Structure formats: C-alpha cells, structure tokens
C-alpha cells in the first residue's frame, strides 16, 4: 500500500436533503451536495451559516434528523464517526484537534491503525510481523510528512509545532486514512498570505497525487475561487447558491448574504 502511488479512484459522494435541528433552530435544512470523483468543491457562507455542522453531519458526529448520505453506493447514515472514516471520508478540524502530546510521526501513524495487520499476540511477543508492519507504517507516515513538508519535525510533539505546521499536520493525518473524500474545514484560517498561497498549491497537489475528492470550507474567497471547480453557498442553514466561482461571484443572493442588503 504505497501511499503516494496508490490509486483508488472512487469518492463519488452524494448527500441529499440533510437536515438537523438543535432545539427550535434548523441548523442545516435540506442540504444537497454531489461530489464527483476527484472533484474539488468549495463550501462557503457567512459565520454561523452551518458549514461545520454539515461536516459534522457527514462524518457522523451528529445524526441528521433526515436526509441521505451515500459514498460510492454505500449509505453512511447512522454509522459512527470511526466507521465513516473507515468507509473513506476523512476530515480536518477548524479548531485544530491534534494529538498534542504524541509526536508528529505518531499523529500520522494513528490513522493507519484501521489497517493494522497484527494482533495482540504479535505485540507481546514482538514477532517479525510486528516489526515489519511498524516499519511500513513509519515509512509511509514519513513519506506523507514529506509531501506536507513536515519531515524535519517528525519527532517533535505535535503541540510544539507552529500554527501553520499544525494545520498541515492535520491534513497529513487525514490523508493517512487513505480517504476517498477529504473534508477540509478552513485549512487556511490563521495563515498569512504566503502560507495561503502555498496551501492552495498543496491542496491541488493532494488531489492529483492521492486521487481524492475534496470538499473545502473556507472564508478566504481568493483561495476558494482560485482552486474550486464548483461552489456551494450556505446561509442560515440553507443553500442559497450553487455554481462555478464566476457564477457565485455575480450572484446577488450571495452578495446580499455577505454584505447585507444595500
């Protein structure tokens, strides 16, 4: 399972009529989305529009009140987050959630656990299989860190990384699950202009190299408009526009949602 050259084309992901209410508030109402394999789509909207809630619904953190979620023909509704992750959907978090006290390398290696090929017997007796698979994991994790430019810091604690590196480590860790669909929740938040430009390149490279479908939440319009093929705009839990970056830019409803009525 060589990370870099492993080609799993898939990731046809369809969400229909996803709805959830918290108390009386409809946080997400009738959300539809269709991601084709290797597509890069954006999900934008003002603060509190429900973007992260959509991610939490897709990844099983919340159970939707109604709606369907289907990845390559398999329904994901009602599965636990870890089952959805195994099914091929990985995510990053808006408020970084690394395993702070583990090393950078270990953070990535946690994601390989779902494919661990040894059991408790191999652990306690340290069989050759244990050594072989641990080495494989270490090598793959190292390769992945190289892609994200973190190989120098592999033995540092995740919490000691600078902010931008932590964001990149989150992406590396998500990629290690070998996802068909990658959900990135504001990966550019808190980065400076140069870092953002570098990140745009990295995201495009990830898509081509790992053949993943990507859904991107982002506030930075330049970043979203620059790399996404299609954009969905969410406001007050409802979709107000879907289209190419050009169409979205000219859509009066979108302008109204962001700037208010003039």
């Amino acid at each position: 399972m060589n990370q870099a050259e492993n080609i799993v084309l898939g990731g046809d992901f369809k969400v229909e009529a996803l709805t959830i209410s918290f108390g009386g508030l409809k946080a997400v109402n009738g959300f539809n989305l269709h991601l084709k394999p290797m597509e890069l789509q954006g999900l934008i909207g003002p603060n509190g529009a429900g973007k992260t809630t959509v991610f939490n619904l897709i990844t099983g953190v919340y159970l939707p009140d109604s709606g369907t979620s289907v990845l390559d023909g398999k329904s994901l509704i009602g599965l636990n987050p870890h089952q959805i992750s195994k099914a091929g959907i990985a995510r990053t978090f808006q408020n970084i959630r690394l395993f702070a006290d583990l090393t950078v390398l270990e953070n990535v290696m946690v994601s390989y656990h779902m494919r661990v090929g040894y059991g408790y017997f191999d652990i306690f007796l340290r069989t050759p299989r244990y050594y072989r698979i641990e080495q494989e994991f270490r090598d793959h994790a190292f390769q992945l860190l190289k892609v994200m430019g973190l190989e120098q810091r592999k033995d540092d604690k995740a919490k000691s990384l600078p902010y931008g590196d932590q964001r990149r480590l989150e992406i590396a860790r998500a990629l290690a699950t070998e996802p068909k669909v990658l959900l990135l929740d504001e990966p550019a938040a808190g980065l400076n202009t140069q870092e953002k430009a570098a990140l745009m390149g990295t995201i495009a490279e990830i898509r081509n190299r790992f053949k993943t479908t990507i859904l991107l939440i982002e506030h930075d319009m330049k970043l979203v408009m620059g790399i996404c093929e299609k954009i969905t705009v969410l406001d007050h839990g409802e979709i107000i526009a879907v289209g190419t970056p050009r169409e979205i830019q000219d859509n009066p409803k979108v302008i109204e949602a962001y700037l208010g009525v003039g």
Partner: protein
Amino acid sequence: MKRFQTLVLIAVVALLWGLNYLFEENLNPYVLRVIINCGIGMILAMSLNLVNGCAGQFSLGHAGFMGVGAYISATITSVLNLSPFFQTDLGVGCAIVMGGIVASIAGYLVGLPSLRLKGDYLAIVTLGFGEIIRICFLNIEAVGGARGLSGIPPKSNFFWVYLWVVVTFIALLRLLRSSYGRAILSVRENEIAAESMGIDISHYKVVAFVVSSFFAGIAGGLFAHFQSFIDPNSFVFNKSVEAVIMVVIGGMGSLSGAILGGVIVTLLPEVLRVFEQYRMVIFPLILIVLMLVRPMGLFGHKEIWELFRRKASS
C-alpha cells in the same frame, strides 16, 4: 536483536533469583517485606496507569479488581482443595494468573457500561463498582466473609513479585509502543479526532480497562499469597485512592513514573515511622508539596530514559 533480548531476559530472571536468596538470607525481614510491598505497588500503579494515564479515563475502583484477583487466587489455593499442586510455587502461580483472568473479565463487565461516561461521572461509577465488588466478598461466607480468608500459602517471595513487575512492565511497554497503544493514547489526546481517524474509542477504552484489570488482579493475587491473609478491608476505597496517587505522582502515562510512584507511596509511610503519630500528617504534606512543585507528576508523560535523552540533546 531478538537473541540479545532473550539473553537480557534470562539474565534478569537469574539476577532476581540470586537476589531472592541473598535477601532472604541477609536482609532484615521487615525490610524485605517493604521491598516486596513496593513491588506489588509497582504492578498496581503500572496497571492503573494504562487507564488513568494512557487512556485518560479516570477510574477510582482499582482496588476492586485487585480484590477479585486476590480472592479468586486465594480461593483456588486454599478454599477449594483441588489438588496439592496448588500448594506449590507453580500451582500458586497458575492460581494468580487465573485471578488475573477473572479480574479482567470483571473489568470487561464493569467497563462496558461505565466507559460511556466521562470524567467525574466515570470516577463515581467505578468507585461504586469497586465498593460493590468488595461488599460481595464481605457477604460470601465461603471465602470467610468479614472474618477474611487466612492460611493462604505464602508463596509470593521477592523473586515471584519482581518477576511479575518485569512481566507487567514489558507487556505494558510493548502494548503502548504498538499501533494499539497509539490508539489508546489518541483516545486520551482527543476523542473526537481519534474517532475521525477511524479509532473505535469505546473499544479501546474497554481494552485498556481489561488489560489494566488483569494486572490489578495479578497484584491482588501476589498480595494475597504474600500476606497469607486477606479480608474485604484490604481492598477498600482507600486502596484505590492510593493507586491513583501512585499514578499521579509518577506522571500520568509514564510507566517508569508509575513504578517510582508505587515505590514512593509504599515506602514513604514506612520511612516516616520515625515521626510516629505525625506520620500521616507529614505523608500527605509531602504529596501536596510534590504536586505544587511538579503538577504533571515526576516524569510527566515521559519515560525516565526519555527525560535523559531530552537533556542530552538540548
């Protein structure tokens, strides 16, 4: 590499065997008792460390599982009269392992429902289960009830106790240095992130609990066959608190820290005997000062050899 490890292991066993003879011949029996109690404390602390320190689940019922191990193994060797085999060193060893296995089953049964809870709630539920287990023994006449169980063959000597210390240390270290160990640690670090990376967090909480209960049961079995007398009062809530103190002092998540914690908490009350009635005032004071000076425990999350490596490199 493999051969080297085997050689080291044989050397360690031989060393323990030799020390056992040396200590029994030359050492004051009181000092030897304290040393053996330290060993039992180490096993207890290392086992609890897996749940409280590594998986980040706060359990306050560890004495209960120790009690299960003690009572089951003692029942096999001195109540059931199965065969003379269970009076020999090896037979007692088997009984202690059985005690560990039954303790781990108890851990599974307790862990399955209670590990859905977090923090304070989990602490209270495990505390409750620990007490339930103790009160069960209090009311089973076959194992002596409140009078306790006496005449247990005193087979836990320095050699057997410290052999189990080595076994526990190696087993837990190997578990933690594996993909399964990383899964357990990731639960402590961030449950939501761990789940999103495909870790079945409830499963690994239960795994940590079961393995931990097994070694607590072993500690209990060794304790029973060392004291040659047990009663339900040996496994009260205070014992669980003592185990938690060992883990916290040593540093949550550090195996070598747990070993040191086990030694400190067993040894300090003995060393402080010179202060007579002030002993139990000074002991907690020392603990308070220790927590103020090093709130993360003596070793923090690190192992002792990592502490030194850190210093050497920076």
